[in-house]
């Protein structure tokens, strides 16, 4: 029963870290000198965005493993990771939109690089779902989806660069090239929030993967009984 033990471990870690991190972010971390209280969105928006990248990266890694080894189980894992990435990407768009509204007075601004990048990625991975739905299940779908997922991993840095050279400089730069320029308390609260959201994503990934596996097993069972 180590799987269920690990599942509850991830879930408990997510609950503890998120509650602690959000409490620290809201009540303990100092208020930002420039942006005031609205900067607190940072502690939920940025961890969600980084988690979405992590999910896409993880999905691409599983896709690479699929092409490498040809083992079919990686297909479901890659698909589930990208599924989670899309959910967290959508959350990034929503929380980023709220931040844009409070900082600049508009729900959407093309000057916000992170938001534009996530819109591109959201479109890209929505097409990934369309691709999966329009090919019959089988090795061909596994490989084609894996190749497309790998393209996503390349598209993230390329689009990042593209949006960077194209965009104006409006997004608040929290991390400079020298490293974090956050005060210690802010950084600690941020790191705990990030760990919490990552643990949440890991929990959801495992639950979703288990559900998809049960679905597949039941389909097989039905075929055996038919």
């Amino acid at each position, binding site marked *: 029963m180590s799987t269920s033990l690990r599942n509850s471990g991830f879930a408990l870690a997510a609950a503890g870290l998120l509650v602690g991190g959000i409490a620290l972010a809201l009540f303990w971390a100092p208020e930002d000198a420039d942006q005031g209280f609205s900067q607190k969105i940072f502690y939920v928006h940025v961890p969600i965005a980084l988690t979405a990248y992590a999910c896409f990266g993880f999905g691409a890694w599983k896709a690479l493993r699929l092409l490498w080894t040809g083992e079919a189980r990686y297909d479901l894992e890659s698909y589930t990771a990208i599924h989670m990435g899309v959910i967290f990407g959508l959350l990034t768009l929503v929380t980023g939109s709220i931040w844009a509204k409070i900082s600049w007075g508009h729900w959407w601004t093309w000057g916000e690089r992170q938001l534009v990048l996530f819109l591109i990625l959201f479109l890209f991975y929505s097409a990934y779902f369309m*691709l999966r739905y*329009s090919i019959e299940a089988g090795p061909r779908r596994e490989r084609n989806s894996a190749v497309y997922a790998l393209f996503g991993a390349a598209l993230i840095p390329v689009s990042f660069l593209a949006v960077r050279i194209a965009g104006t400089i409006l997004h608040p730069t929290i991390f400079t090239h020298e490293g974090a320029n956050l005060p210690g308390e802010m950084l600690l609260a941020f790191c705990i929030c990030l760990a919490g959201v990552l643990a949440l994503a890991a929990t959801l990934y495992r639950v979703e993967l288990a559900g998809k596996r049960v679905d597949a097993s039941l389909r097989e069972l039905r075929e055996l009984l038919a």
Partner: protein
Amino acid sequence: MTGYAADVAALARKDLLLELRSRDTLPAMLLFVVSALVVFHFALPADSSTRAETGLLWIAIVFTALLGLTRAFAAEREQGLLDGLVLAPCDRSAIWLGKTIGVTAFLVLAELVALPAFALFFHAIGWELVAAVALADVGIAAIGTLLAAIAAASRARELLLPLLFLPLAIPVVIGGVGASVATNPASFLGFLGLYDAVFAILSWASFEYVVTE
């Protein structure tokens, strides 16, 4: 010539010869791009800036490429030749390279008409725009050929290809438009070169997995 280069040359020559005989794709692309430019003239209000016109030229280029790419594997599919091609005793990435060279040739030919037509209808174009279009063609053809092969295996191929292609084409449009209108085209041209290199290598390496049965 080594075996690989000879294979690629033979495959690219086959595509170009096939097009020369049947004239399926290229005339359609030419007519489409000129029609699109005429539509754009009426879509733009009379006092629009030349920068807006340049942006629309890039839309015309991307959609013309899409039109050509939809047909990229049409001949093979209609005659069931792709499986035969995959079984042929050559490296599978050679199929991708040959096809990419063919698609690039079509794109260049379409733009040999489109760019003068644009200069005639709208405004004069500079060397940066031509360089950006040449670089964009390579990237579009490289990635488009791979995506066309992916889409060819699906049920809704004509529907799926634009959905797969357009998000990946956004960086090309950013680089192309930037190179055509910005004061520092070199960095945008460099970006397009980087895009070409990254996605050409990735497509070249992964094509084998897409066509293997």
